[in-house]
């Protein structure tokens, strides 16, 4: 057998397909422990489901659009013609913002086209439109579509307000002056989307000694939220254990980017273990001992080359004076093994040798 490398390969190969059937009671335990999930969730695994859902919504909405449009055109009210004129003018700019199609006509066919455009946009964002649509009139439908649109942007409130006012305006036959200024926030939504994603970069992963501090930073962006809760561009961290820090950065256009920076904490405070000592009473290195802070559950065993245990202790401050049962030990190499719990609560085992010189 060759050392090291081969062994891992062989173990990996052998255990790749290793299986063992668990005892029956395990499943019973699992079944009892798993919390029941009563609310069925939307199935994201099959895009086809999403597509079917979207298609259904589109179909229903188009149908509704037709019905409502026809109803309105047949309304025997005196002001109906004027009303429709105003209404179409109101609808058109909203639609224009959401699609590259330019529509200015008031024909039903054109409206039909518009409605498709709106619905296509909606599908990306929301699939819960179906039920409310059935009960509401065309203005609310537009309002709703618009709201759904703006969920991704920062102008939700503005849009909600805007569309409400648009609906009101239509119902009360208000003239166009009231409506025009309200259309600008809608434009903003579109503008914010079309900007390119700006470049944001993060400081690289770091390795620090325990007790040291590390500075993590973000390059670019205007607002920051770190996993530590801090909101500054730079943060100073002092982890005791290796830690992953995440940060969410938002740039001027509202785009967000998440970064992950790993700070690896190395155990640098390893105890100092001399490699030689001379128990000759001259005052220099007369004993062998381990020098270290923050050491717990310390144990040391020193063994001679013949395999005899010459010294054992559980006290880090206790030193070996170079004697075996009261007699001076021979010159030569002695092997030690030291075990302790370090600051990171990890057990450390250090083996080495020390030379006894007289």
């Amino acid at each position, binding site marked *: 057998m060759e050392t090291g490398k081969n062994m*891992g390969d062989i*173990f990996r190969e052998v255990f790749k397909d290793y*299986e063992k059937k668990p005892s029956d009671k395990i499943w019973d335990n699992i079944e009892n422990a*798993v919390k029941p999930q009563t609310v069925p969730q939307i199935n994201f*695994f099959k895009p086809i489901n999403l597509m079917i859902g979207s298609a259904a919504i589109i179909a229903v909405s188009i149908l509704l659009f037709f019905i409502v449009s026809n109803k309105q055109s047949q309304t025997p009210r005196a002001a109906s013609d004027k009303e429709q004129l105003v209404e179409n003018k109101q609808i058109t700019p909203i639609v224009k913002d959401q699609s590259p199609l330019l529509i200015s006509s008031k024909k039903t066919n054109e409206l039909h086209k518009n409605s498709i455009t709106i619905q296509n946009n909606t599908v990306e964002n929301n699939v819960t439109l179906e039920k409310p649509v059935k009960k509401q009139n065309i203005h609310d439908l537009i309002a709703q579509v618009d709201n759904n649109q703006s969920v991704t942007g920062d102008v939700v409130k503005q849009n909600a307000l805007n569309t409400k006012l648009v609906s009101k305006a239509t119902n009360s036959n208000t003239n166009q002056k009231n409506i025009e200024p309200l259309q600008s926030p809608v434009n903003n939504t579109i503008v914010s989307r079309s900007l390119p994603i700006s470049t944001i970069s993060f400081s690289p992963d770091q390795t620090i000694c325990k007790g040291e501090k590390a500075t993590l930073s973000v390059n670019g962006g205007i607002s920051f939220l770190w996993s530590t809760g801090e909101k500054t561009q730079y943060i100073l961290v002092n982890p005791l254990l*290796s830690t992953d820090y995440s940060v969410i950065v938002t740039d001027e256009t509202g785009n967000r980017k998440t970064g992950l920076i790993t700070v*690896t904490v190395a155990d640098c405070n390893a105890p100092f273990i001399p490699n030689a000592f001379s128990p000759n009473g001259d005052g220099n290195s007369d004993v062998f001992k381990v020098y270290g802070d923050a050491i717990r559950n310390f144990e040391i065993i020193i063994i001679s080359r013949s395999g005899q245990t010459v010294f054992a202790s559980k006290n880090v401050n206790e030193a070996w004076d170079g004697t075996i049962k009261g007699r001076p030990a021979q010159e030569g190499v002695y092997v030690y093994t030291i075990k302790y719990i370090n600051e990171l609560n990890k057990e450390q085992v250090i083996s080495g040798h020390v030379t006894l010189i007289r």
Partner: protein
Amino acid sequence: MIFEEEIICGCIKGDKKAQKALYDKYSAKMLGVCLRYFKNIDEAEDALQEGFIRVFNNIDKFRNEGSFDGWLRRIIVNTALNYYRSNLKHYYSIDYDEIEEVVEDAKLSFDSLNVEFLLNLIQSLPEGYRLIFNLYEIEGYSHKEIGIMLGISINTSKSQLMKAKKYLQHKLITKVK
């Protein structure tokens, strides 16, 4: 693969049949993983049980971005690690003389070794060695990843791995003799 997706979808909805199907499909394989991390089958089954409960309670977080097999295995391994951590103080630590054992070269054919024998070998490893040997050699994690997972330095991971290998070699030689 459609079969597997259906099972996963069922599990997300909390369908008992789908959960059982998933369990039947993967439990033997995952117990095979757990066994490598624990001294005996009882502990391995405990970890398997805990792991599957976590899988079922969190399966809605699986987004089909990687293989389900890998995702499942990661959860099971993490459960094993947690299990190990919480029981850390109960485990005995290695005898000193076993560490210092000098490893000789031996002519040994691995072909003659069966899985059960090697599993026993792994299970006989001291806890820390076993963890790192499993994570590095069999699961394929890097020393850096292991360092983060276990909260140890990269060098500790490396040296523990070397010691684990020496230990295994020594055990192999002794058993064959």
